């Protein structure tokens, strides 16, 4: 069982550019996630936040720029290799697989376990032992995220908020050093939001990982984040602590429009 008690490596994004047939989704974006911090990525719709996540998790290859995690270069790695290096993510729209919560969490343990087709088919003792150990850890993570009572329930029967939490717990099951959360509280009610914030705080304190967060709920971003990077039309327009970003004129313009535009509209 991997236990990352040491500080997680630094995630450095340098001059990443992504183009989709003429549209520049990300234009030389750079930011660095300080080990153990919560780094929020905000911006209006279409700013390139999700594209940025897809680059970080290997689903999308940048035209230029690099992504490094500690000493490892993630830029050209396949998604499953990046996952094995300890970068886990959740999705904006829930993407769980069929089966119970336990099945989903055990999928998160995939990169950390060995048993192949032959060992599993023959149910070799070592494969069974491995499965048991990982199941125990998955149960711990379910308890940590408040899913313990649903552990053996089919995911399809859970509420929206619980399913979002399953995704979150599944990402944690990878024992990541960097956790990418894509709108973790979107569509949740106030109580569910509060609970998710609490869980993020807990896992950060207990597991000591870095969190990169995409979220539209500004109140939550300001409360959770240590650092904020603001994107607009694929460019980084601001960077700093939540307070600095809140008063940044560029950010206000991107979110609210300029005075001149407002006059035109009127």
């Amino acid at each position, binding site marked *: 069982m991997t236990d990352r008690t040491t500080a997680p490596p630094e995630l450095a994004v340098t001059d990443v550019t992504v183009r989709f047939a003429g549209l520049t989704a990300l234009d030389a974006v750079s930011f660095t996630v300080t080990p153990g911090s919560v780094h929020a990525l905000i911006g209006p719709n279409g700013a390139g936040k999700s594209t940025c996540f897809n680059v970080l998790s290997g*689903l999308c290859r940048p035209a230029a720029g690099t992504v490094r995690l500690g000493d490892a270069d993630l830029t050209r790695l396949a998604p499953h290799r990046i996952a094995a290096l300890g970068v886990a993510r959740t999705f904006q729209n829930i993407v769980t697989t069929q089966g119970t919560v336990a099945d989903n969490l055990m999928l998160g343990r995939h990169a950390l376990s060995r*048993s192949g087709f032959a060992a599993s*088919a023959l149910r070799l003792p070592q494969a069974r032992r491995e499965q048991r150990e990982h199941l125990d850890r998955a149960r711990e993570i379910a308890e940590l995220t408040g899913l313990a009572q649903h552990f053996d329930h089919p995911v*399809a029967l859970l509420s929206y908020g619980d399913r979002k939490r399953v995704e979150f717990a599944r990402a944690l099951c990878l024992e990541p050093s960097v956790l990418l959360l894509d709108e973790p509280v979107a569509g949740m009610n106030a109580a569910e939001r509060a609970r998710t914030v609490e869980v993020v705080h807990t896992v950060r304190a207990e597991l000591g990982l870095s969190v990169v967060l995409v979220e539209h709920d500004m109140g939550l971003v300001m409360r959770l984040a240590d650092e904020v990077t603001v994107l607009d039309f694929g460019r980084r327009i601001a960077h700093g602590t939540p307070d600095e970003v809140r008063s940044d004129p560029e950010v206000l313009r991107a979110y609210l429009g300029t005075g001149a535009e407002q006059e035109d509209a009127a």
Partner: protein
Amino acid sequence: MSERLPRARAIRLGWTLAAVAVLCALPFYLDAFWLRIGLFSMAAAVGAVGLGLLSGTAGQLSLGHAFFLAMGAYGYVWLAGEPGPGLPTAVAAVLAVLLAGAAGGIFSPVAGRVRGIYLGVATLALVFLGHHVLLTADSVTGGFNGRSVPPLELGGFSFSTDSELTLLGVPFGAEERLWYLGLALFAVTWFTARGLLHGRPGRALVALRDSETAAAVMGVNVSRYRSAAFVVSSMYAGLAGVMLALSFRRVVPDYFGLVLSVDYLAMIVIGGLGSVAGATAGAVFVTALPLLMTRYADQLPLVAAPGTTDGTVGPTEAARYLYGAAIVLILLFAPDGLHGLVRRLRARLRGRRAAPPPAGTTSPSRPPTSAVRAKEPTP
């Protein structure tokens, strides 16, 4: 998945032992007709488990299962027979399974690139190609008339009627002997396939089906697992092919046509996708029903005796109509297959025995899984 209660486990073990005992006792009571139905069902079940793994669990539509069945059947006949290397039959059987797996491995780069209905069409090509080769490569396959199958011999024991054998007053012919071989091979299939499905590979394959993106970011090597599903499925098909060849005692090209592939797809859909028990139930249903109906259709009203041509429905046609109607009924009323039907009945019984259930909570039935998803939601 999780540890079961000891009592539930004991009950389960009891049922399994009872089923095994009944299956082992059957050759002492049934005649050759029924035993042959059983043999074909067991072979089909092994093949269906393989296809279920590929199409039901991993979500890759394959219309080429007949090709891999033929690889197993003809592989065994050629390897064990004359003309051919004339290997010991047990060795030939193992090699035939590996040969089918290798054929799946050779095809798997294609499977890694095409998805959904396109993969279905690509695998369709395999069936036509295979059928053509079976018809034309006379020296290996025997051409249109096929080849007779050398009986399997294990340590001097022949699975044929060559030597006399009587057990407890029951003469043991080829069917009786093959029955136990079939049971053993089916047990191996059941054990290994369930181990796969409930273990790490099974979860990875389910993830591939439900979302390749999610699988990849959870650390599943997508292309490797897609190929592996093909290889494993082909190996089960190869084993089923060997079993079919031994039961038929003659292999002919026309058996391994597109219709056979479609039959296997029907088996896994009727049985319920994604479970070994479902694939088995579907295999028995699809294999046994037409045979039974052909045999007993003349006792139904409005069905003429065989050979009469006075415009009424003959037993063969009646069997086909009934078979078709049964499939439609199952798909209408149990879209999650026989396995889902049993699960719902069981949940209802359990609910009745326990406290009166509130409406709507008794059946945790899942919505039917689509065998193949051509597109997945983009994150």
